[in-house]
């Protein structure tokens, strides 16, 4: 090739590369807009709430005086509701996903079910609240209790858990399934000895993403009638005498973190706004902690399993 042509080509490449640079800058700006806004919000929340984040804040009930008020009933409520949510959503979601992915025949009925499961993830949470109010609170007479709230949120995150679990199951390569079958395994042996253990990481990640969504939900919980001011704790789950475990707490009234925050933000006094900010920091911390656990679990399991 002769000289002038080469120069022309270089010019062309340089012109094309300009778009790389332009996009890199535009992309970075877009990214920063998002990240900086979030950081600013978080920073403001921390600055406002930090002075209130003393041990007393965690072990006090709400109170008429902002300085004495705390989040004891709220964080205990949130923890117990999340426990019920996880215990209900994990077995239901994982079993449904296994059925859909490994057992269900591929026909129009399962196709319809599949599409609906995906769509359910987009249903507004308040609709779940209404459904739960009718079903759990009145029909099944579970009351405005921790149990009702946990089951409501379990319904809410079920589609997330199902979709994530199916993806995790699908990530197990066909060659591993064939290896198990070729040794004479039944479908259940293949699933329970191989596919399920190998996809644990993905499943747990899905569950935790679901729980992180549930922990901040307010609307459905208000709909089923959580209290906004509660100055006592539910029955303790562990007791001093036989049989040591008690389930009375399931039927107790409760409040949760977002509701406590909502309650405080609607007060006119400035001091309560600081309480709300402090509770927000705690709620964010809980979410980050859960996500951290998810990342750690995934990392641990990935280290063992590489396809």
């Amino acid at each position, binding site marked *: 090739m002769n000289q002038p042509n080469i120069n022309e080509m270089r010019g062309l490449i340089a012109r094309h590369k300009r778009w790389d640079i332009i996009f890199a800058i535009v992309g970075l700006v877009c990214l920063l807009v998002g990240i900086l806004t979030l950081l600013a919000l978080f920073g403001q929340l921390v600055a406002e709430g930090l002075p209130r984040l003393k041990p007393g804040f965690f072990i006090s009930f709400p109170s008429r005086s902002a300085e004495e008020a705390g989040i004891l009933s709220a964080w205990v409520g949130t923890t117990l509701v999340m426990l019920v949510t996880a215990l209900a959503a994990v077995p239901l979601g994982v079993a449904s996903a296994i059925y859909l992915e490994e057992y269900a025949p591929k026909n129009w009925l399962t196709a319809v079910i599949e599409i609906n499961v995906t769509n359910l993830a987009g249903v507004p949470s308040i609709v779940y609240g209404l459904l739960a109010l009718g079903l759990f609170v009145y029909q099944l007479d579970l009351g405005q209790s921790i149990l009702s709230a946990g089951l409501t949120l379990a319904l809410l995150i079920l589609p997330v858990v199902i979709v994530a679990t199916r993806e995790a199951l699908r990530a197990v*390569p066909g060659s591993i399934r*064939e*290896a*198990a079958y070729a*040794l004479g*395994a039944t479908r259940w042996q293949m699933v329970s*000895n191989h596919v399920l253990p190998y996809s644990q990481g993905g499943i747990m990640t899905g569950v935790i993403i679901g729980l992180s969504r549930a922990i901040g939900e307010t609307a459905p919980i208000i709909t089923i009638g959580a209290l906004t001011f509660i100055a006592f704790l539910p029955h303790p789950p562990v007791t001093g005498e036989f049989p040591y475990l008690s389930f009375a707490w399931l039927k107790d009234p409760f409040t949760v973190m977002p509701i406590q925050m909502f309650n405080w933000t609607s007060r006119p006094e400035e001091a309560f706004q600081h309480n709300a900010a402090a509770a927000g920091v705690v709620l964010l911390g809980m979410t980050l902690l859960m996500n951290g656990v998810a990342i750690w679990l995934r990392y641990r399991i990935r280290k063992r399993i*590489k396809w």
Partner: protein
Amino acid sequence: MSETGGNTLKAEARSLSFYYGDYKALKEISLPVHDRKITALIGPSGCGKSTFLRCFNRMHDLYPGNRYDGEIILHPDDVNILSPKVDPIEVRMRISMVFQKPNPFPKSIFENVAYGLRVRGVSKRSTLEGKVEQALRDAALWNEAKDRLHDLAFNLSGGQQQRLCIARALAIDPELVLFDEPTSALDPIATASIEELMLELKEKVTILIVTHNMQQAARVSDHTAFLYLGEVIEFNETKKIFTNPDKSQTEDYITGRFG
């Protein structure tokens, strides 16, 4: 029955056809598999070698739309393993398979080899340990693996992983072992060790192997079948196939003149 040279047969395909949906991938194949011999399947890509091999452990049953026609008779009890009345799991308990790419489970070396036994309900530690050791010895992996039985199988090299898969297939005392291009992902040294291994194994077990490597077929097998477009073009003793084939197509393929 087509017994050549007084050899007994381990299995026999009788006008076996196979369909992926409407596509007929195997066309009335009849082929004997001699007991405790190595039978090689050769032929150009897409001619149906893997499809044929996977009929022997009913692997095709795992996917919808597949259909068998004809029979594969397993001796000595003369059962047609393709019959819908025969449970594919029962077939897979008698006939094991080694795949093209090593596919160990993400478990320990020990658990990989023991899995087939566990599926068969063996759970006594001492029995498992004995069988695992024997299988690893048979697969020529014992010396390398004996000190790291509880290490992850993924930490082994590719060739070792394939020998592990062979050990896994042998641990269940199969009557017939299917190999689908077991060395195509391996380097020449690992390939040589697996070929050597197969020659030792045929003392105990019947082997049916798919290979793309003409030298490999010539080196290890006793009988060779040349498949083309889903049909058996020629079947004979390996020596005959490689020195003086009856069909010109076979000769063209073996000498690399196939177009």
